[in-house]
């Protein structure tokens, strides 16, 4: 195919019945990833704030980890957008000439505000550590130590005071940043819902409930991801303790007890938000069916025929109902919780898919359908960016970033620092 015939969307769109000539699935997998990743960022930050603001002591270990992880997730919330743009090099134009009647224009501002809050909070949490490291590395002359010392030296920003009074001030600053961060994180995500909910041309998206539904499902996915990571960390600790001191040791039992308690408590919050999210989605569905506006005929055939499996089996069945049952049945175990959490994360992903792709599954003419085929094996830049490979890149990036950031800001096994 010559270059001038490569029409964006043609590759992965199948048209059925009557669809306008210019209609294709323009918003593909990366736009599914975008709200999913922002949801995780917001969720991870909110969880870390629970410790800093409300002093949930049992979340101490979790708080530091989820804060640093939300930093690793931060650039990843923007990545799908950049991969999706036809002119990625002009992405910065949103900051240069924001056109404020557009819901996307505020993204740069909301996102930068949020980034500043996360970075500030992390700086206050780690300032004491930076100073300690600069002092500890003094006198070591090898290249790695010199590099590290210089880095920490710069990171202190010249603030070397670590007496009790200064550290107490740091703590207070962390608390303030975390408190401001909660509504901003909520806004960041509710606003992603507004981007979709305000498109009046799209019968499936246009709903004032959309931002609220998005916030609820974001909190659900954020809590689920943090719980899952917590379980993995605790299981790892348990394994280490078992290897070091033997299975019957007191400390192993202690870890197990503490883990179960945290998980049981957090899962109650998860269930609450899950119920809220499902109720809102059901309300939306029932309302559309009852009012039966012009678009209902086509929406009904998309939901109950074309996309039935994706919506009712994968999203509501496997992603909502099944984990709900797993978490509600008595005698909750760690293994069952872990399975439920994986299913919840999958369910939220399917919800994003069904909104973004499902919203383009029918023609604006209401007389035809479009089917999306995710490009699996890339054969050009476009099928890489907006295919399975691009989605995997987006998912893998936060973990790679976390690995790097964690070398400078250790968040998993820190001692003698009580922030």
């Amino acid at each position: 195919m010559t270059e001038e015939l490569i029409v964006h969307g043609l590759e992965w769109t199948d048209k059925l019945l009557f669809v306008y000539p210019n209609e294709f699935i323009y918003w593909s997998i990366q736009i599914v990833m975008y709200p999913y990743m922002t949801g995780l960022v917001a969720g991870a930050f909110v969880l870390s704030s629970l410790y800093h603001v409300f002093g949930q002591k049992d979340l101490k270990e979790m708080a530091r980890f989820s804060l640093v992880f939300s930093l690793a997730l931060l650039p990843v919330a923007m990545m799908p957008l950049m991969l999706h743009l036809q002119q990625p090099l002009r992405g910065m134009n949103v900051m240069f000439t924001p056109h404020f009647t557009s819901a996307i224009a505020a993204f740069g501002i909301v996102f930068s505000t949020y980034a500043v809050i996360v970075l500030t909070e992390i700086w206050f949490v780690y300032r004491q550590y930076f100073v300690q490291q600069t002092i500890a590395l003094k006198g070591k002359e090898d290249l790695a130590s010199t590099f590290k010392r210089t880095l920490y030296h710069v990171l202190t920003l010249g603030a070397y005071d670590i007496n009790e009074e200064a550290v107490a001030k740091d703590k207070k600053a962390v608390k303030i940043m975390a408190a401001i961060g909660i509504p901003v994180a909520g806004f960041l995500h509710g606003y992603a819902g507004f981007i979709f909910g305000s498109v009046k041309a799209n019968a499936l998206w246009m709903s004032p409930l959309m931002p609220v539904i998005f916030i609820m499902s974001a909190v659900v996915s954020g809590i689920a991801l943090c719980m899952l990571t917590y379980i993995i960390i605790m299981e790892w600790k348990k394994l280490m303790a078992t290897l070091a001191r033997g299975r019957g040791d007191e400390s192993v039992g202690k870890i197990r007890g503490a883990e179960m308690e945290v998980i049981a408590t957090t899962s109650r919050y998860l269930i609450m938000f899950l119920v809220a999210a499902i109720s809102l989605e059901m309300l939306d569905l029932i309302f559309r069916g009852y009012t039966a506006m012009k678009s209902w005929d086509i929406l009904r055939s998309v939901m109950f025929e074309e996309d039935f499996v994706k919506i009712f089996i994968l999203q509501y069945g496997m992603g909502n109902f099944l984990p709900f049952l797993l978490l509600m049945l008595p005698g909750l175990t760690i293994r069952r919780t872990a399975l439920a959490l994986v299913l919840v994360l999958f369910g939220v992903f399917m919800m994003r898919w069904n909104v973004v792709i499902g919203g383009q599954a029918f023609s604006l003419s209401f007389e035809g359908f479009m089917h999306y085929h995710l490009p699996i094996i890339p054969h050009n830049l476009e099928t890489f960016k907006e295919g399975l490979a691009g989605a995997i890149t987006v998912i893998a990036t936060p973990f790679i970033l976390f690995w790097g950031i964690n070398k400078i800001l250790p968040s998993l096994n820190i001692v003698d620092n009580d922030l």
Partner: protein
Amino acid sequence: MSCSRRKLLKSALSASVAASLPLSAFRFLSPAECKAATGTEGTRWGFLVDTNKCVGCGFCVKACKKENEVPYDAPVTRTWVERYVVTKDSKTHIDSPMGGRDGFTDPKIRGEEIAPADIAKTFFVPKLCNQCENPACVQVCPVGATYQTGDGVVLVDRKWCIGCGYCIMACPYGVRFFHPVHKVAEKCTFCYHRISNGQQTACVDACSFGARQIGNLLDQNDPVTKIIMTERVAVLKDEYGTKPQVFYLGLDRNVR
């Protein structure tokens, strides 16, 4: 010289405030304001489509593609023609192969043969950008790359569009697409380069049947304005509140 951190932060803050003050002395003009300032008052472009006259030859689509350099064989187009066949059992069959570029020579609709005896009515409907009074596409552009001129035409700045596709999603009429070569949002401009120079649009020129006409809605003596004012015209999808400025004569209720 000693400089405390507090002092440094203070001076940095006041320096940035001072630096931004001279900038606020300038007023930012939107492209629409610029255009209006250069003298297009007294003009509001409007379009009239007489569906009774359209025979579905597709010459308008051909002319548009050539005039506006939309790749000829790409399945996207700034204007297109739809064929409607309503059968006696009240079913509507619609198609627009290649936007109707090559005319409708095949009696089959998407491979389905319809017996002439079963047909209740059949007609063609040309479509193009409605150059809405209240354009949803302009509202949602995050960078202001798409804008409305003083004489009511919605244009795209190819050098500033980031290609996010939000405008394509926002248009209820499906007139926008990504240009296969320029990789930015593309749409019908009423041939702005021609109408601003006193010419007709390419599609109007190409139509031998007078199904398409363009005129100035603010000029009461304009033949197009006269028809719109005195006859019963309809617009497409007015429920979206976009106030379309392409008017149709003989629009059927089956038209999507």
